[in-house]
């Protein structure tokens, strides 16, 4: 079976700076991959390239065998029109470090917006699904609140529910707990752990090594725009082989 996400030789530059340097990674269906590494390693950039919030300079990223954000024309890849790109992005859910909830909409409306406007799900069906999701993340009683009235942990859980409402094939998390007060990290990780156990395919950029050890099938260590080491969570975290991984883990643990 083809991997659900296949990144091959991806390169991304910001001016002279090589943010991604020949990055290749396959993610299998149902797999949880945690990406760790020092600041500036290119972790966010890689995640953002996967749903083409960033364009890439060379290489290919495929979702379920289909190029994302580009189409092949002869030997070159041309950017896909916005409309087609939007259709592809439905298959990828994204959770941001800063939550990015829609402040003018209530919690329920935040979760409903995309199913209603993008898929055209009948309202009653969408509401039922949204309420189920909010229940799932433990926020059934907050559906009428506005994001500004929630704690960071609650906001992030709404953001997870909002992404799940599109029934994505892969969930991308970019440091979902980094902006949270320490006492609120646990509630968000608990929701993510549940998702992982439920078989959701996840790519998680995180500094929570304990979470990676527990929930990840594989761990990717990135530094200087490259994937330095990748392997089963236990192997990379407990017995790293590359000196940079060893140094990084020593510093954070």
């Amino acid at each position: 079976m083809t991997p659900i996400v296949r990144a091959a030789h991806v390169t991304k530059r910001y001016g002279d700076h090589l943010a991604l340097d020949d990055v290749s990674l396959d993610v299998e269906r149902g797999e949880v991959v945690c990406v760790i590494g020092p600041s500036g390693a290119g972790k966010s950039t890689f995640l953002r390239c996967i749903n083409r919030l960033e364009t890439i300079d060379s290489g290919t990223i495929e979702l379920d065998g289909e190029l994302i954000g580009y189409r092949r024309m002869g030997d070159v890849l041309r950017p896909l029109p916005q409309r087609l790109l939007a259709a592809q992005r439905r298959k990828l859910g994204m959770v941001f470090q800063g939550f990015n909830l829609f402040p003018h909409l209530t919690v329920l409306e935040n979760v409903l917006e995309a199913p209603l406007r993008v898929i055209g799900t009948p309202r009653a069906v969408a509401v039922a699904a949204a309420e189920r999701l909010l229940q799932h993340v433990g926020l059934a009683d907050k559906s009428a609140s506005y994001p500004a009235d929630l704690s960071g942990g609650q906001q992030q859980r709404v953001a997870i529910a909002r992404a799940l409402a599109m029934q994505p094939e892969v969930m991308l998390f970019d440091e979902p707990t980094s902006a949270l007060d320490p006492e609120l990290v646990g509630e968000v990780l608990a929701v993510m752990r549940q998702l992982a156990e439920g078989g959701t395919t996840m790519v998680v950029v995180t500094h929570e090594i304990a979470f990676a050890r527990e929930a990840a099938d594989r761990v990717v260590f990135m530094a200087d725009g490259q994937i330095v080491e990748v392997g089963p969570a236990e192997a990379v975290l407990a017995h790293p082989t590359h000196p940079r991984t060893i140094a990084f883990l020593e510093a954070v643990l």
Partner: protein
Amino acid sequence: MTTVHGEPGRVPAVPVVSTGRLGLARVLSPAIVIVVAAALLVAAISNENFQWDVVARYFLSGGILTGLLTTLALTAVSMLIGTALGGVLAIMRLSRHPVTNAAANAYIWFFRGVPLLVQLVFVYNISALYPQLDLNDWLTPNVVAVLAFSLHEAAYMAEIIRSGILSVPKGQHEAASALGMSPWTITRRIVLPQAMRVILPPTANQVISMLKSTSLVSVIAVPDLLYSAQLIYSRSFQTIPLLMVATIWYLIVVSVLSVLQNRIERRVGRGFTRSPQRVSKTSGRGGAA
């Protein structure tokens, strides 16, 4: 020391009572305001030159009311067209295309730089520029007025709309894109509603200032509120009372608009400020920590 609850160190605090100059001002200023206002009112009522009976006679007269309607219509239509055109200019200003961008900049530079009265007179005489086009047939004073005000207003609305759109954080765009929303859906459902919070208050100011600016049309003989009053006093020489009629009407309309402005601001602010209940809860938690 013990308190009612018997908790050591928990001393009840008395709220600070303001004293000194500011405290004095707080007591004095209402009194001063009331006295001065009363004096002015008495002076105005007792001054026979105001001719309040004439004011009353004309206040609801047909000529004045028609003038008022013209003023309101002129404001509404010019504002609508100006906002639509301003929206287009704002999008041009936000475009990365240098030519589009420069064109919008030039427009805004011109229409903000030239006084409104000059623009009005200029459009009024535009047929002199192109006599062969025979513009006079449809360039009636009303059309001239709407044209001049809309073109002028568009330059201001462009900047207001642009800053509104720019006020929406990039993350909102990204979150909406990541959910698979099309650019149009993102604009309509995510960006504009949030931009409105920044756009509406200055727009309400624009409406109010447009309402007052429409009085300039008296120079091209459009019978708005002011010009209707002028028409009457040019015959009857009751200048002051008729100016009072116009003044009071302008104040009434502006007051109504201000009330509407407040309502709108409160409505679009929903979700951007914490609701009061929540604020007290968090401050309570902060105090305990």
